[in-house]
């Protein structure tokens, strides 16, 4: 083997690639920004590596080497709310959290409901620390009344459409969106919460909302929305992706739809498989205000069950930055959303893997090959010839979430102060190290 063939090698790590069914100690060889090969440890491999310059070798002893993680639900806030996040800072947060690709939601100002805005985001993302895939809007201005120019959006590179933040309330419009999307073979992603039933609600409707006197958003609002869309999916045969599943009934409905063979996929967020609504009354922490809301222990357990039995395909953060000024206020007046890119891996390890619900392979699958397959994205695997997007994780690293350490421009996380286990140490994008926890950030970053 001619060693100069390789630009970078990651040695001694435990390589996990669910797409290849691979899970053992191996070396990953990178050339020209692509995966050249993955070889299990041997004397020949060691000799090859020994011939390389030290700065081309990463020693991942004790660490996991996995395909670059993909987060299919991220709000980058640019254009419009650059005070809360920009494409640059959001991608820096992604890299620090181990994500080499993110899907950005279209509810920016202006909305991503036309080619120009898609192009703007793509241009801004060109030099960023993560790949940015754009979700276009389903309806013009996310107003729910007229279809956006979906053909144009797809032509410019949008990988899916969604009115995220809002449910497409009209069944007629949703029907047409599903039918129309079939021409482009893209999923229609839905924020499934009936807007009439959850109007003015600021937290889950439960004994907790009753106790606190806060207006509730019932789980039934999500269940009804999902059941309606499943019926439309059955009718149209179009691909439906349910975003941030939060309720027991929703998980059940999607499980049944999948059994029936419908083209339905879905995602769950860490806050929905970790938190419950009894947290809210403790301090009225506005960082716990999120849509759909964090719900009861029974709902959380159902989401975990859905992750375990495969009903839930993807783990996505719904990273939703809000400035301190927006969140430092009365609970019911705070905007909904919390950041998540930099805490996902720690929460997955601490709450799903360490508690025996998922093994690393299952968990990585839901953050790599599954999202890549659902949305037709590059990467998600370390197969030869694929882009060299790689994440290196220290699975045993214990750490405390600190507001001052976020790369995101915003700090609206309810997990600040939590002790977690499992942290990303290096992130490699197209063969280039874009994040290295061992190296301090350059001044001004």
């Amino acid at each position, binding site marked *: 083997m001619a060693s100069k063939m390789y630009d970078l090698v990651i040695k001694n790590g435990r390589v996990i690639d669910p797409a290849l069914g691979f899970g053992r100690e191996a070396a990953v060889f990178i050339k020209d920004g692509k995966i050249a090969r993955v070889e299990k440890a041997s004397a020949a491999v060691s000799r090859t590596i020994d011939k390389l310059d030290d700065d081309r070798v990463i020693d991942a002893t004790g660490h996991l080497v996995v395909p670059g993680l993909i987060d299919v639900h991220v709000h980058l806030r640019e254009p419009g709310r650059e005070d809360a996040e920009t494409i640059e800072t959001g991608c820096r947060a992604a890299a620090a959290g181990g994500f080499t690709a993110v899907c950005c939601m279209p509810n920016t100002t202006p909305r991503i409901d036309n080619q120009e805005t898609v192009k703007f985001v793509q241009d801004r993302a060109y030099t960023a620390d993560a790949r940015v895939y754009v979700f276009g809007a389903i309806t013009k201005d996310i107003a729910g009344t007229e279809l956006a120019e979906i053909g144009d959006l797809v032509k410019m590179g949008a990988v899916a459409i969604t009115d995220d933040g809002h449910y497409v309330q009209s069944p007629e419009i949703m029907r047409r969106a599903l039918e129309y999307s079939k021409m482009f073979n893209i999923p229609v992603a839905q924020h499934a919460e009936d807007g009439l039933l959850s109007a003015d609600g600021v937290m889950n409707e*439960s004994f907790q*909302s*009753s106790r606190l*006197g*806060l207006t509730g958003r*019932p789980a039934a609002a999500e269940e009804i929305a999902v059941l309606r869309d499943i019926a439309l999916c059955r009718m149209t045969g179009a691909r439906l992706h349910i975003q941030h599943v939060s309720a027991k009934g929703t998980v059940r409905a999607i499980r049944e739809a999948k059994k029936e063979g419908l083209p339905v996929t879905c995602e769950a967020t860490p806050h929905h498989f970790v938190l419950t609504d009894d947290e809210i009354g403790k301090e009225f922490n506005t960082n716990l205000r999120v849509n759909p809301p964090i719900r009861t222990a029974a709902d959380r357990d159902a989401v975990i069950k859905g992750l375990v039995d495969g009903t839930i395909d993807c783990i996505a953060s719904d990273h939703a930055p809000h400035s301190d000024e927006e969140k*430092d*206020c*009365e609970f019911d*007046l705070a905007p909904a959303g919390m950041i998540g890119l930099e805490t996902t891996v720690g929460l997955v390890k601490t709450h799903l893997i360490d508690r025996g619900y998922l093994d690393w392979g299952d968990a990585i699958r839901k953050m790599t090959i599954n999202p890549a397959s659902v949305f037709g994205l590059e990467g998600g695997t370390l197969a030869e010839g694929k882009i060299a997007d790689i994440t290196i994780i220290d699975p045993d690293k214990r750490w405390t979430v600190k507001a001052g350490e976020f790369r995101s421009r915003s700090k609206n996380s309810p997990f600040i102060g939590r002790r977690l286990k499992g942290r990303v140490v290096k992130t490699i994008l197209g063969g280039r190290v874009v994040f290295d926890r061992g190296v301090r950030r350059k001044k001004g970053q």
Partner: protein
Amino acid sequence: MSRLSAPHLLGLEHAPREDISRILETSDTFREVLDRTIKKLPTLRGITVLNLFYEPSTRTRISFELAEKRLSADTISFTASTSSVKKGESLRDTVQNIESMKIDMVVVRHSSPGVPYYLTQCMDANVINAGDGAHEHPTQALLDMYTIYKRYGKLDGLRVVLVGDVKHSRVIRSNIWGLKTMGASVALCGPSTLLPYEVERFGCDIYTNIDEALDGADVVNIMRIQLERQQAGMFPSQREYTNLFGINRERLKHLNRNYTIMHPGPMNRGVEITSDVADGDKSVILEQVTNGQAVRMAVLYLLSGREEGEQ
């Protein structure tokens, strides 16, 4: 130092029995002062109290202002018809301004649950919750409890029925927690649309039939029903509400002989309560108003940590 277990009175859900007992006992002392010719004590001289009202209120604000003045505190009142956010100034800025004015105690009313707690996180003053959204209104519940206590000499073992819009009532929530802590048996009654989700978990008996709810009860505390609930589709008409839940003379026959009629005001006469019941000899509705001052004096005094006569 506060003479209660906490420096603030944010609600009754977590208030220990000893605190409530102390407030009720202390209220008795101040109640006596209200019958004197000169209804004033030097107890809170030199202490500045701010009444911060983000929601319109007449009786609660006046009751607090009177209580403060009768204890010789310096008082100022701030009333805003809308929340600070809508006005353009953040709640934190408002609060920090207040803190800079060297205020010792704040009485706050706000439409958002949790605002009194928020205040305790950004200022040193003692905070008294005068109603936060549909969450809690502890001094109203305390004055209701004091009124019952004065009449029966106890709370333990009494049967109290709270009637009305349970879902949106902070008065009912505070009454539930306080009464249960003091050993009373609590029943809730209202249209099922105005009973909050999983209402049974409050640990009360739940009724949608008013006659059954009143059966064998000692005290009926009747809440104002707001017209806007009907407009929001919570019940079909005021007429039907009155027919199903209105308290009239005929319905009183279900109660124990030595019964008591209460209403925290303001009343919709002819809607949730008929005038003959409101003005009847078992009604303590105006006594509640007087007792409210005594209870608020007690709360201010106990939280201030002042000795009687200390200046």
